[in-house]
């Protein structure tokens, strides 16, 4: 059976060139980068090269602004806790309701232990940030503004460069979780007011367990991990040399493929959305139609439940994901879709298809071929479908 992997926002396939590049660092190049001898010197040089590769993709001014970490989650935690420690006279955080749990859970914990007051800014039906509420939350009490560059569920992009300028006006630090954006949208940190940015290797065809935190030169910073001079004392611990080398090459390749992501991959994504919307009644696309990642399609199917759809898709060889409660074991559907006020009738049945440069057209065709039948079967089982308002072909509810 042909398979289709359309869950690239969860993780991507490691590029074979990346795998090859990292392998010697498990074998001949096993040295510790900190060592004075030749074994270490070689590794040390490889790390320098990797740092430059990441710097280039981010458009950062200096290579030492890149701090290697274990991934997006560590980068996010480091950024938040560092900001609170550096800005001792400020104890507020401004973030959004649609952030990744790596941000939200940390913020909720800080609130719970009385360490910070957090403003969770809402979004509109397209997932766009409520700018008025954002401005209102800014004050000289704010230590950190942390807002994602692109949403992992819907692909909706926040105008972070502009938001960072606003944060600067009140003297707050600005961090962005750019895990989904890096490699898909052009980034030029040199000319921005962004102080910190998180990225992760495995979202851009690199391995899991490695990532980076960009820290602008001159921005105040306190480390999360202490106990060594590595990363200029900003992240202690012997460097994950194979991972870092892999991340470097993954970033270089991502830069080369960015145009493809925004042309061929985007065209496939659009074909998938069009194909599904034309054949399946009562469904619509979630997210900002004008400013969205080129690879992400989040489609809401009314009156069916997401996990049931995924189980059928899986049987047909198609991998996707859902914001459905049942998939995660919680009973609340996706916090992102709820923040967008997507009605329950549709939020429970929202499926995310995320493509990558590895995606081929037959995979998309396969979805268009099997999905209508799956939805029809499940709707026939649903007690709500018979009485539902059947939508016209060009279904465009106000919330979509």
């Amino acid at each position: 059976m042909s398979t289709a992997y359309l869950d690239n926002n969860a993780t991507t396939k490691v590029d074979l060139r990346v795998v090859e590049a990292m392998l010697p660092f498990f074998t001949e190049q096993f040295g510790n980068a900190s060592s004075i001898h030749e074994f270490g010197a070689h590794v040390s040089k490889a790390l320098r090269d990797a740092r430059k590769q990441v710097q280039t993709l981010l458009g950062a001014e200096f290579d030492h602004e890149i701090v290697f970490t274990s991934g997006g989650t560590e980068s996010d935690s480091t950024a938040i806790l560092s900001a609170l420690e550096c800005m001792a006279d400020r104890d507020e955080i401004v973030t959004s309701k649609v952030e990744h749990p790596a941000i939200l859970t940390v913020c909720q914990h800080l609130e719970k232990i009385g360490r910070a007051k957090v403003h969770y800014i809402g979004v509109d039906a397209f997932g766009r940030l409520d700018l008025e509420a954002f401005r209102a939350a800014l004050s000289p009490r704010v230590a950190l503004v942390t807002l994602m560059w692109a949403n992992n569920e819907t692909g909706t992009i926040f105008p972070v460069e502009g938001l960072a300028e606003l944060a600067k006006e009140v003297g707050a630090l600005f961090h962005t979780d750019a895990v989904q954006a890096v490699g898909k949208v052009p980034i030029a940190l040199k000319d921005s007011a962004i102080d910190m940015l998180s990225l992760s290797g495995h979202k851009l065809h690199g391995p899991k367990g490695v990532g980076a935190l960009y820290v602008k030169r001159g921005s105040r910073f306190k480390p999360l991990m202490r106990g060594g001079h590595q990363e200029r004392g900003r992240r202690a611990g012997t460097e994950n040399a194979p991972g870092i080398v892999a991340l470097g090459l993954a970033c270089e390749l991502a830069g080369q493929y960015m145009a493809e992501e925004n042309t061929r991959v985007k065209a496939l994504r659009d074909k998938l959305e069009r194909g599904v919307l034309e054949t399946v009644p009562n469904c619509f696309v979630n997210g900002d139609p004008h400013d969205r990642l080129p690879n992400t399609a989040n489609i809401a199917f009314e009156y069916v439940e997401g996990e049931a759809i995924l189980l059928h898709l899986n049987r047909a060889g198609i991998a996707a994901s859902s914001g459905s409660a049942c998939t995660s074991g919680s009973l609340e559907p996706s916090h992102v879709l709820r923040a967008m006020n997507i009605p329950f009738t549709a939020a429970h049945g929202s499926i995310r298809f995320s493509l990558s440069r590895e995606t081929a057209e037959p995979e998309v065709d396969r979805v268009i071929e099997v999905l209508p039948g799956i939805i029809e079967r499940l709707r026939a089982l649903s007690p709500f479908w018979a009485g539902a308002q059947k939508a016209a072909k060009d279904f465009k509810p106000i919330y979509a």
Partner: protein
Amino acid sequence: MWDYTDKVKDYFFNPKNAGVLDEANAVGEVGAISCGDALKLMLKVDPVSEVILEAKFQTFGCGSAIASSSALTELVIGKTINEALNLSNQDIADFLGGLPPEKMHCSVMGYEALQAAVANFRGEEWKDDHEEGALICKCFGIDEGMIERAVRMNRLTTIEAVTAYTKAGGGCLTCFDALEGLLAKVNAKMVAEGVLAEAEAYKAGGADPAALKKKTQAARSAENAGNAGRAAVRAADVAPSPVSPLAPPPKPLTNLQRIRLIEETIEDIRPLLKKDGGDCELLDVDGSNVLVKLSGACVGCQAASMTVGGIQERISARLGVPVRVIPAKSH
């Protein structure tokens, strides 16, 4: 991906008895689209013999919800109404070879739909009182309102007791923090209202979730052992209960003593039920089966299983032997 059994997968991909049953004379609808799952159970019952001749379902929900619904229809076909009412949600889960703990509420939904369908057949009203309050226990779909009511009604002051009365926290126990916070909050309110002594009230941090989880599992196996030995218990009518949280009476009770104790226990509970617009009456005691009649708001209340469970727990504690409280058809 969930670790579903092959039987769950089979009943999901090839559901039996799916669809609309036009000649249904007993229909139960539970859940809502906002909850993420909903089930409409349709039964065709022989009015004379009360045998369920046909059963069909329509379900909005995840894989295990659809499989549980289909399993329920298979389980009830051919049974009489009264036999069907003896099915528990665990029977549905067992039929499917087990469900992941986080999915047990799918089987509870089946159990409730059956209660609702029977109420409908008997011309009673089945009230879905699932409140809009925050959901605390996701395994069993227990919300704040249900827990607060059980805590108040039974003056519960420990997490274990809340789990026993409402099932909340009986699964994965990831809701421990929320459950603990709610119990402390409700107890504090009760202290302020003067219905609970300060010293008795639960304070946050008073329990260890890991130890609790072990205990719950141990209690569950003890309960299973108790069920298996029910026949023996009935014959002797005296064995001290392994599940009783209270000290068993030292001497075996006579039948008359037992019935009096059961009566007293029910009398104790009635004022509380009446406060919520319900009532409970003792009809008969048959061995370890206690037949009661629930009326008023208790009838068809989604919390009926909780009420019945609560009464059962109290009587068992009072007698020192496990009993089964069965809500009977009203005469």
